[in-house]
């Protein structure tokens, strides 16, 4: 079900995860608030460059971008026609406007640029490392611990789920649009919750036996190297340039 992309090696992989999180966050915010096409297109190019630098195979990158674009395609069916402005083209009684098309295009570029850097981040860092980095970045400890436990047990509970589904299949269960199907699925979910809560109790007791007192310790430590600082400064400069470009439009 869940495949992690990380595990190769590249310039991006060697970057400090904290730096990566901060940069991806700033980049996303910058792109989300920008409006100028020049800025957005440069950001898109920058995003794809970073994704390629992370040695992500193009096929995987595109494959991961497809689900992101489903919502965007949905919006393309509406926005060109619902925006008021100069008519550009018409489909039957509907008139597509110039402004509407531009708006939809802007959203498409923004979305893909942000997702490209996001994919580069995930592709170059394991989820557990991201958790530790979030802790270092002062995200509340409880939240980070919750993140760890949820991530850890998604795999376990998914296996449980697969087991329950095979048990249903063995007994000849065929899903369809009927009450029996819905009831069966409801009981499946219920069983999943019951087993998870039982497991939670066992896990917690086992942790108590091993001296758990609400702390998790990380074996890896992060340190900023000169390479990290150079990358950070370089990326910040790029983003500052994009920000200035966006700002000059307004004045």
């Amino acid at each position, binding site marked *: 079900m869940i495949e992690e992309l990380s595990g190769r090696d590249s310039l991006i992989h060697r970057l400090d995860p904290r730096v990566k999180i901060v940069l991806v966050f700033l980049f996303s915010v910058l792109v989300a608030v920008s409006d100028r096409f020049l800025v957005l297109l440069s950001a898109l190019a920058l995003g794809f460059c970073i994704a390629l630098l992370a040695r992500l195979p193009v096929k995987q990158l595109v494959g991961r971008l497809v689900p992101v674009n489903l919502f965007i395609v949905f*919006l393309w069916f509406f926005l060109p026609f619902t925006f008021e402005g100069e008519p550009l083209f018409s489909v039957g009684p509907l008139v597509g406007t110039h402004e509407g098309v531009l708006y939809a295009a802007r959203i498409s570029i923004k979305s893909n640029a942000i*997702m490209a850097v996001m994919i580069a981040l995930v592709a170059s860092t394991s*989820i557990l490392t991201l958790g530790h980095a979030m802790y270092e970045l002062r995200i509340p400890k409880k939240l980070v*611990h*919750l993140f760890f*436990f949820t991530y850890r047990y998604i795999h376990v509970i998914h296996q449980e789920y697969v087991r329950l589904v095979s048990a249903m299949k063995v007994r000849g269960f065929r899903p369809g649009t009927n009450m029996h199907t819905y009831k069966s699925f409801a*009981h499946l979910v219920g069983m999943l919750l*019951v087993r998870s*809560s039982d497991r939670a109790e066992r*896990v917690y007791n086992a942790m108590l036996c091993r001296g758990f007192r609400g702390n998790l310790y990380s074996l890896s430590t992060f340190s900023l190297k000169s390479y990290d600082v150079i990358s950070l400064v370089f990326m910040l400069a790029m983003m500052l340039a994009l920000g200035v470009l966006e700002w000059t439009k307004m004045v």
Partner: protein
Amino acid sequence: MHISEGVLSPSVLIAGAALTTAGVAVGLKGLDHEEIPSMGILSAAFFVASLVHVPIGPSSVHLILNGLLGLILGWKAFPAILIGLALQALLFQFGGITTLGVNTLNMALPAVICYYVFGWGLRAGTRQVVFTATAFACGACAVLISGVLVGFSLYLTGEAFLPAAKLLVAAHLPVMLIEGVLTAACALFLRRVKPKLLEGQYVPRPSSS
């Protein structure tokens, strides 16, 4: 329904992030360190449940179950859903960093509302009919409110989104029925098998301390 990155206006994103931060803060305040392992495991169970696809006519929908989540976790639905969505963004790239706040709010706020509105009907000792009806209403309303909130987020971004927003809410209606039925059946199952789960085992009781 997740709203993709880059769609919403900055003011909607900021408002969503601020409200979610507040909700998560309330949720975390009521969360003891000792409860974190069990909370994490339950959140993981809901994460897996949301991957279940249920057939409806020729197509299928995936479960949301935020009504049930609200009933079981109360305000802790906020951190649970935040983590769930963050993991979905990291693992499958559904949504991203800037929309995390709005998307969490759209899913978690209905859960908390349902906890307050319908929680009473699901305690021990309620009659079977009342119990079933409340659980159905809880599941259905949670999805309805979520749909309306998603539509509202789009509408606040620009009036041009109105038709798309209306269609999104309409698309939530059949899902609403299914979620209602499933929540009711699931709650009945839990009542027979493990009633403790529905009785606020994971919800802090302010009077107890």
